[in-house]
């Protein structure tokens, strides 16, 4: 069944980078304040990474906060504790940490399926949380990592200040655009097709001779890299890394966002992040006590009636669920 925005979906799938850049270039002027748009961008990127695993590889991870958190701590420690001054280097370290984490967890967790796989990802995420909590000298422990400085961006010899919300927003957008472009490349490649095949029918894909293990592990690492980049950006955005970044509640949040938007679509994670964050931001103003119940109810309603999420329903089932 084709939804009302199905033609748009086709165009966006073909040009995801342009779509994301166009929307998020304008968004700061639409939202009540710029930082909300940046928050949506960063969490949307986090959800995009998670969605690679859920929507495209068909794997539900309960511990995706691990890669978000590793990215955040990687960048944060580089800048706050090691005193580095290059934002690019900090982002690279964050992504590296996240990617390594993804490789490690994937190596073990992918040996099992379904709920067992999910619980293993959760166990590893909790392990990282525990380590960050107790290695207080390095990570700040449960008080969080503070002291992440506000640095300018070094680009082609120029030093571009990022100390206003808008300038930081465009910097984050540029990074996200690169990540989306990279993801598009990956999904368009033969590897992407293999992933789709595995998602639809794992045993048949294996029977056709594809290396299922390797493909899944690679998708795990890509997913971790993207979520890690998002985490690194958030560390720069907030100038703190709270230890809650690694906690299972954060993993739960990205699941909600992805589902609200629609798994298995490019834009869905961003739509879901926007819905969740705008609701949280605005509802808490008018319903100080009761806004969490609204979000929970919205989520339940979505699972029941709109399992493809907002975006997924609008475009009429990019990938059925």
């Amino acid at each position, binding site marked *: 069944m084709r939804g009302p925005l199905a033609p748009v979906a086709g165009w966006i799938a073909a040009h995801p980078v342009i779509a994301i850049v166009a929307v998020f270039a304008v968004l700061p002027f639409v939202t*009540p*304040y*710029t*930082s*909300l748009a940046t*928050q949506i961008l960063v969490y949307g990127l986090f959800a995009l990474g998670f969605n690679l695993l859920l929507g495209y590889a068909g794997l539900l991870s309960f511990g995706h906060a691990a890669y978000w958190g590793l990215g955040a701590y990687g960048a944060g420690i580089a800048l706050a504790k090691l005193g580095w001054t290059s934002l690019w280097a900090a982002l690279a370290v964050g992504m590296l940490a996240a990617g390594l984490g993804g490789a490690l967890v994937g190596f073990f967790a992918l040996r099992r399926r379904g709920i067992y796989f999910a619980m293993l990802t959760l166990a590893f995420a909790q392990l990282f949380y525990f380590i960050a*909590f107790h290695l*207080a000298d390095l990570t700040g*422990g*449960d*008080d*969080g990592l*503070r*002291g*992440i400085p*506000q640095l300018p961006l070094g680009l082609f010899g120029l030093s571009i*200040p990022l*100390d*206003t*919300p*808008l*300038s930081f927003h*465009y910097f984050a957008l540029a990074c996200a655009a690169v990540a989306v472009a990279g993801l598009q490349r990956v999904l368009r490649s033969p590897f992407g097709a293999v992933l789709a095949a595995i998602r639809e029918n794992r045993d048949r894909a294996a029977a056709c001779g594809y290396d299922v293990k390797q493909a899944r592990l690679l998708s795990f690492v890509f997913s971790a890299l993207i979520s890690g980049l998002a985490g690194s950006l*958030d560390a720069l955005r*907030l*100038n*703190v890394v*709270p*230890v*809650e*970044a690694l906690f299972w509640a954060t993993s739960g949040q990205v699941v909600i966002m992805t589902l609200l938007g629609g798994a298995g679509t490019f834009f869905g994670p961003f739509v879901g992040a926007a819905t969740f964050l705008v609701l949280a*931001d605005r509802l*808490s*103003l008018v319903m*100080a*006590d009761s*806004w*969490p119940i609204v979000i929970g109810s919205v989520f339940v309603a979505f699972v029941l009636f709109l399992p493809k999420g907002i975006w997924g329903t609008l475009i009429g089932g990019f990938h059925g669920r």
Partner: protein
Amino acid sequence: MNRRTFLHSTTAAVAILGFPSVLRAQGGPLKIGFPLPLTGPFAAIAADQRRGAELAVDELNAKGGVLGRKVEVLFRDDELKPAVGAQRTKELIENQNVDFVVGGLAAHVQMAINEQTKRAGRLFISISQSDEISAKPDTSPITFHEALNPTITGRAVGGWGVQNLGKKWWMVYADYAWGKQNNAVFTEVVKKAGGTVLGSTPYPLGKPEFSAHIPRIQAARPEVLMAATPGADGVAFMKQAISFGMKKEMKILVPLHFLFAAKEGGAELFADVYGGTNFYWEVAETVPQAKKFVDAFTKKFGVPPDGYAGYGYSGILEVARGVTLAKSTDSAEVADALRENATYDHYKGKQYWRKCDNKAFQDLWLVKGRSQAKGEWGFFEIAGKVPADEKLERTCAEKGHV
């Protein structure tokens, strides 16, 4: 496009990207941002903070506001999470253009808020416990700490305890920053006074399962048990301690007592348990400013104020006082004004800001749980008072200030 147009539009673009927010309109209300955990496990204490702030705003506006402007406090739910606290602070600063921020409950959230207020150059008065927020590197000239911290509380309560309750101690504490700080301070104080710490029991925060530990503690026969068990953990710990008969064997002491925990748990739960507090409403019987505060508060809300209501009240009033003194809403000028006129007294007696670290020094009380509440809210009786004393806190040098 010709060169001139290009230069104009580029300059405009750079201006938009580069320059901070445009001049805020003078006049209009004086806005104070107030992030606090309206949802989550400490919502009851946050409600207390909020009531204190609301009373302060009412009183200020009844007198005509500050510098002729009405005071408006914008409450935001930070869910007790640092990331949310930071985001709400951004919203308050970018969207609402608040001049100042008061608030925060729990150290990690306060510090996340502080990072945002420092960057935006807005004065922040933090109103809950944290040892780090007034020390380097977290602190700043516009970061003020109104509340007590684990060092002061620990030295005051521990010092009082080792003089009045017993010399052989056992420490139970939650294994996170606040718990560990309390353990360290109490241990230091007890040893300095010639007491001994027979042992300690760290436990994972949020997992108040003590039945595995209690027999060991009882076997060691301490005279005093210090329990740094926050929130629901504290209620669980007391229940378990009672069921094992510990109250009959030793005195139990907590760093902080909360009226709402006693209300929730019932009088028997905290009966005979000693604890510190920055304010307890029965202090009104002996301190006239407190009587004024408690009467006005109870009249407005129908419930008495507890310690954190006092912080909320005092925090807002201090912002107002600073603005009035500085005759400006510029945060740096207000901060200087507060340091230069450091003494104040809003609800319980004289308080003052220490110059080097913007730390508020204040009296605190030791209270003990009554076995039966006197009236609806008389859960505690006053056991002692510890006057403000800089020896209870780390020195400026120890906190990294030169």
